[in-house]
């Protein structure tokens, strides 16, 4: 079985330049045959709101964050969102893009224990 890694994404729309590399690293990890999960919490969860990531550009004139996210999803990165953080932002699960699994904080701790590496952005 492939080694597991996790990327915890806390950056969001307030810091566009911090919102491309985590997805790039996630796609890269899949290309290296890691089993990759991203855990969105704090402001990272906002990126999962339908339509929002299309409006955030890490680099002027470059691709929107949604494009980096779609590449990660297409590569096979699993997206999980912290339920409590959706409440922080008054988001309903139905407000989020498709393919996101809602999980509690304990899921993150258990997965972290199983992972070879955990990165935090």
């Amino acid at each position, binding site marked *: 079985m492939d080694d597991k890694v996790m990327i915890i994404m806390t950056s969001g729309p307030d810091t566009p330049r911090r919102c491309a590399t985590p997805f790039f690293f996630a*796609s890269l990890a899949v*290309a290296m045959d890691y089993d990759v999960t991203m855990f969105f919490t704090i402001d990272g969860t906002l990126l999962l709101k339908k339509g929002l990531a299309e409006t955030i550009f890490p680099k002027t004139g470059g691709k929107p964050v949604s494009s980096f996210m779609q590449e990660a999803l297409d590569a096979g990165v699993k997206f999980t969102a912290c339920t409590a953080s959706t409440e922080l932002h008054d988001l309903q699960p139905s407000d989020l893009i498709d393919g996101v699994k809602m999980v509690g904080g304990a899921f993150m701790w258990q997965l972290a224990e199983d992972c070879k590496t955990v990165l935090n952005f």
Partner: protein
Amino acid sequence: MATIRGCNLPEDLYYLIDKHVWAKPIDGGLLRVGITAVAAKLSGGKLAAITVKAKNIGQEVKQGKSLATVESSKFVGPVPAPVTGVLVRANDALAANPNIAVSDPYGEGWIAEIKPSAWDAEKDKLATGASGVASYQAKLEADNISCS
């Protein structure tokens, strides 16, 4: 030597067409492997890195599994193994200049050398010779890919 839709595709290589990688028998029962001119084009032209997973050296990598990774500013993806084999060595020259895999994908820009585990069985499923290049041409036409 054949040029198809602007892509240089030598007839003496063995291609895993769907993955855009090639293999070529060399001395000592080894295979040299790399990406095709098509992969070089699809990766966006200017590469930031080609990295062979160091942990894999001395280990068997299955056909189609990731042997290395390619990174550019526009793209990140695996270099799948064209055949199953034990990874013997990586091309150290790629660390200094990954773009030799674009400028000379079948020469200086090879990616790794492997000791094949089942070459006789697997080579029949790879595309080679004039018919192999014709199959590759069909793929490029179906996907509307050109290197020029």
